[in-house]
Structure formats: structure tokens, C-alpha cells
């Protein structure tokens, strides 16, 4: 492994990242420009005259050629200026930022739950593979994985509702008002998103740990008299990290997608609700803004995952 190879790897990754970002932005832009439903016509309603529509088109810059519009949209996208929403009449960027505490908070909570639950379970379950505890975990994992997050949400609402009579579903407290209440209002939805992903991460980690345990270096470490504890934390887990980083990046992008629906079940004012209102009002500037930023986050997540796995396993950089 030379420094040159490493540099070449990072350079290639960076070029890939840029190309992907450009394509993602192009797809987003084209989807909302080429396709039916003239934005100006939608904004003014059916009663507007042709002149009014033309005037608004000129004002919004819709009369310019497509490549020019793409470039100006792209420039806006990277400077955070995505124009104004046609229904709220305020800036798209501001609207998205105002909804972030819900979606982001929920995603972060769900992610913490996934890591905190699936790692210990996988370590415990892989101690005695095939034994009762392991089998119970595996079957439960399969079942949880098969339940759509919004159905899990309904079940959780039902269960918590009958256990504790006073469960506040649909009440949301902003983080700057009362942070404790904010976290509490997001707990249940976060758990609903996390459960299937816990099952997925658990299943993956478990088989990866079992695989590592059968390898020669673990036998060697054992013969040197290292404790099981040390072998697990110093050798097995770091080695299964490489592939778990990839899985975790997939899980993270899934969490984002899942939160869009689960928010709706719990009636939380997050990006999901903003997206739905944009869809029903055909608010294309807002819609393209949400789509682009969510895709941007995913692209960056995958990029970060690639970098992290190459850092923990230098062999990847040569490939």
C-alpha cells in the first residue's frame, strides 16, 4: 500500500461523488421541468388569463431555455437558494430547515436505538449459535423485518395505548420549548422505524461475528490465552466493522425514507408532511427541493461509508 495508491483511491472516489451529485441534481431538475403541470398555471388557478400566466412565467424565469434554467437551479441548490414555494410563498430552504428538527431528531434517535440494541444482541446471540436464545432472536428478527414501519407504529400506538391510558400520540413539542418533551414525543416513532432495522443489523452482525469466530486468527488469539472478551472487542468486532459500515449506511438512508411515512402515522410536523402537502398542491419548487436535499444526504452518507470502510480496511483502496 503506497501513498500514491491511497491518493488515487480518494481522487477516484471524489470524482465519483461529483458525477453522482451532478446526475442526481439533473434527474431531480428534469423530473419537475419536462413533465406536465405548468407551475405558473398551477399557481394562478384555472381562471387566469393567458397573459397573466405568461407574466408569471417570465417572473419565475420559466420562459428561459432548459439548460439555462438547470444551471441557475443548480447554482441555487448549492448555495441553499431553491426559490420560493408556490403554496407557502416563502423560501424552500427555510421551509425545509423548519421541519428538520422532527425528521432529523427521529432519525438520530432511531439510529442510536439500532446501534445500542443490535450490537449487544448480536454479541450475545453469537456466543452459542443454534441455542434457544439465538433461535428466538432469529425468528423474531425475521418477523420484525417483515412488518412495514407504519404497521409497527399502529401496533405500538395500540399496545402503549392499552398499557398506559395516557399516551400522547400526535403531540409534538419543539426542542427549544422543552427538550425533554421533544425527545419523548419522538421516542415511539423512532422505535417504530428502528425495529425492522434492528432486526436487519442484528442478523447481519450475528453472521459476520460467527464467521470471524471460525477464522484462524481467533484460534491463534485463543491459544495465546487472550480472554473471550478481549478477542471479541479487539479482534472480532473491528474486523466485522468493514462490512457493517456498508450496512449501516444503507440503514441510515432507509431510516430517512421510513421516517417520511411514520411521521404521518404519529401526525408529526416533519419533512414527510411537508412532502405530502407539496405533492397534493403540486408545489414543484418545494418538491424538488425536498427530493434534492434528501438525495444529497444519501449520496454523502454512501460517500462517507466508502471512506470509512477504506480507512478500516486499507485493502479496499487497491481494488
Amino acid at each position, binding site marked *: 500500500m503506497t501513498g500514491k495508491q491511497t491518493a488515487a483511491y480518494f481522487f477516484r472516489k471524489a470524482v*465519483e461523488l461529483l*458525477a*453522482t451529485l451532478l*446526475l*442526481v441534481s439533473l*434527474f431531480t431538475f428534469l*423530473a*419537475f421541468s419536462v*413533465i*406536465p*403541470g405548468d407551475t405558473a398555471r398551477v399557481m394562478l388557478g384555472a381562471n387566469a388569463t393567458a397573459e397573466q400566466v405568461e407574466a408569471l412565467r417570465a417572473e419565475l424565469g420559466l420562459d428561459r431555455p432548459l439548460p439555462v434554467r438547470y444551471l441557475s437551479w443548480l447554482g441555487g441548490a448549492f448555495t441553499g437558494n431553491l426559490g420560493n414555494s408556490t403554496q407557502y410563498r416563502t423560501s424552500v430552504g427555510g421551509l425545509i430547515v423548519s421541519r428538520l428538527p422532527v425528521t432529523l431528531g427521529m432519525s438520530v434517535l432511531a439510529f442510536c436505538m439500532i446501534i445500542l440494541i443490535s450490537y449487544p444482541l448480536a454479541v450475545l446471540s453469537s456466543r452459542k449459535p443454534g441455542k434457544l436464545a439465538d433461535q428466538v432472536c432469529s425468528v423474531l428478527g*425475521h*418477523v420484525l*423485518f*417483515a*412488518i*412495514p*414501519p*407504519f*404497521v409497527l407504529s*399502529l*401496533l405500538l*400506538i*395500540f399496545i402503549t*395505548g392499552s398499557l398506559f391510558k395516557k399516551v400522547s400520540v400526535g403531540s409534538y413539542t419543539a426542542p427549544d420549548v422543552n427538550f425533554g418533551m421533544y425527545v419523548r414525543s419522538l421516542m415511539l416513532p423512532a422505535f417504530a422505524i428502528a425495529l425492522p432495522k434492528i432486526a436487519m443489523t442484528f442478523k447481519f452482525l450475528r453472521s459476520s461475528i460467527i464467521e470471524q469466530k471460525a477464522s484462524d486468527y481467533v484460534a491463534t488469539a485463543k491459544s495465546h490465552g487472550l480472554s473471550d472478551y478481549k478477542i471479541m472487542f479487539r479482534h472480532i468486532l473491528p474486523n466485522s466493522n468493514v462490512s457493517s459500515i456498508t450496512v449501516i449506511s444503507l440503514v441510515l*438512508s*432507509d431510516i*430517512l*425514507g*421510513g421516517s*417520511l*411515512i411514520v411521521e*404521518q*402515522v404519529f401526525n408529526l410536523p416533519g419533512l414527510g408532511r411537508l*412532502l*405530502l402537502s*407539496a*405533492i397534493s398542491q*403540486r408545489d414543484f419548487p418545494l*418538491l424538488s427541493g425536498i*427530493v434534492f436535499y*434528501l*438525495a444529497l444526504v*444519501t*449520496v454523502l452518507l*454512501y460517500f462517507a461509508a466508502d471512506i470509512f470502510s477504506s480507512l478500516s480496511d486499507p485493502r479496499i483502496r487497491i481494488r
Partner: protein
Amino acid sequence: MNKNVDTARAKRFYTVGIILLAVVVAAFLISLFWTPYDPYATDAASKLLPPSSAHPFGTDNFGRDVLSRVMCAAKFTVFISVSGVAIALFLGTLTGLPAGYFGGFADRSIMLVNNSIMCFPGILLALVAVAVFGASMYNVVWALGLVFAPTFARVYRAGTIEVKEYDYITHARVMGVNPVRIMLLHILPNLVPQLLPATVIGLANMTLFESGMSYLGLGVQPPDASFGKMLAESQAYIRVAPWLVIFPSMMLVFYILGLYFISEGMRVSLTKGGGS
């Protein structure tokens, strides 16, 4: 010995999976000819009735028979997932096979487009497609087919890269056989072992998406029944009429879980059992 254990495990997965799936498929097949009641007929006199011998799954807030509606919903769910996966398989053949076979620039550009599509959270892409073209069952099928195509393209590509090195394919290539013919007649049949589990998982994942979209009101449109929409409508009655939530979710989970178990059985029997 290990092989026997794996075969037994695969068999268990298959058995449970097929039983679960059979429940849903039976509901779907029977609904084509007969349902206990008209699934669209409202009846103000029998609103929110709990399960009984007359209505085994109870009735909803419009007095419609839940069993009949669940059977209808099974029909749409199976239809959407099967036709969506068929579209994804077709698009995957179109992109993944040539990418793996020709390699080089064609491969890099196809995969770049592919990976860029995969960067949009799947459900988002499907929602937007439906938003732009209008909410209807056929648009959901198209949108989901498109969203899942890159996943299948990857399976095709990885398989093709492996298979194209086989001697008889090199031979065919040297003899000057048309690449399209090589890909479709010689490579494609070899990919079935990888494609089969991917297809089954695709069916399950597509159903997860479709039910979510229907829950949001952007999937199957009322008055047609779908599990997602039924659950959305019954959410308000979750305390007074839990059966409205339980039966549709049960059938939905049966379908997805059945598919997962079958794919798991395939994985166990194809990878471990066959190899060792």
C-alpha cells in the same frame, strides 16, 4: 452433516413460507370469483361490528365486510408486486446484462446512472413519480418497477461478469455469435439461481413500499381496497374496533413474511447446501 442441518433448515423455511403465502394467494384467487359480501357495499345498519359468524373479520365504519375487503386487497397487493417486479426484471435485463457483458465504458456509465438512481430514497422516488403523473394503481406499478430496476441490474451485472468467463461462452464469442444471442440464450439462464431469491425479496420489498404509499393515499385509490389504505382509514378506530387494524396487518405481514421465509430457504439451500 452440516449439509443435512442446512437442508432441514431450508425445508423449515420453505414450509412456513409457503403456508403463509398460500393464505394470501388463496384469498386472492378466491376473491376473483367470490367474496362473502360485496366489498364496496356500505350498510349503515351494520357499522363497526366485531368479528362474528356473519362477518368473521367484522365490519368497518361504513358497514363494509372486512373479510371481503381483505380478500380484494390481497388481489391488488399480489397484482402490484408481481407486475412491478416483472417491470424491474425487464429493465434489469436491459441494463445489467450489457453492463456486465461489455464492461468498460458501457459498464461505468450504466452503473453510474444506476447508482445515482439508488441515491434517492426508494419510497421518495416512487412518491414523486406518482405525484407527477397522478395517483393510480398503474402509476404505482410503473414507479415501483423503475425504483427497483437498479437493484436487479446489480444482480444481473454481478452474475454476468462471473458467467461470461465460462469456457463455452468464450467459445461462442470467438465463433462470432451475436452478443445479444449470447446474453439472452447462454448467460441469462445461468443467472436464475441468483435472480430467483432476488425476485422473491423484490416482491416482499415492493409490497412494503406499496402498502406505505397506499397508507399515504398515493397508492391504490378508494373505493378499491388495499391493506395500506384500510389501515389508514381504521387508525381513528384503533381503540373501538381493533379488528379493523389487526386483520389487514395480519394478511399484509403474512404475505411479506412468507416471501422472506421462502427467499431465506433459497439462500440456505443454494449457497451452503449446494456448495459444501
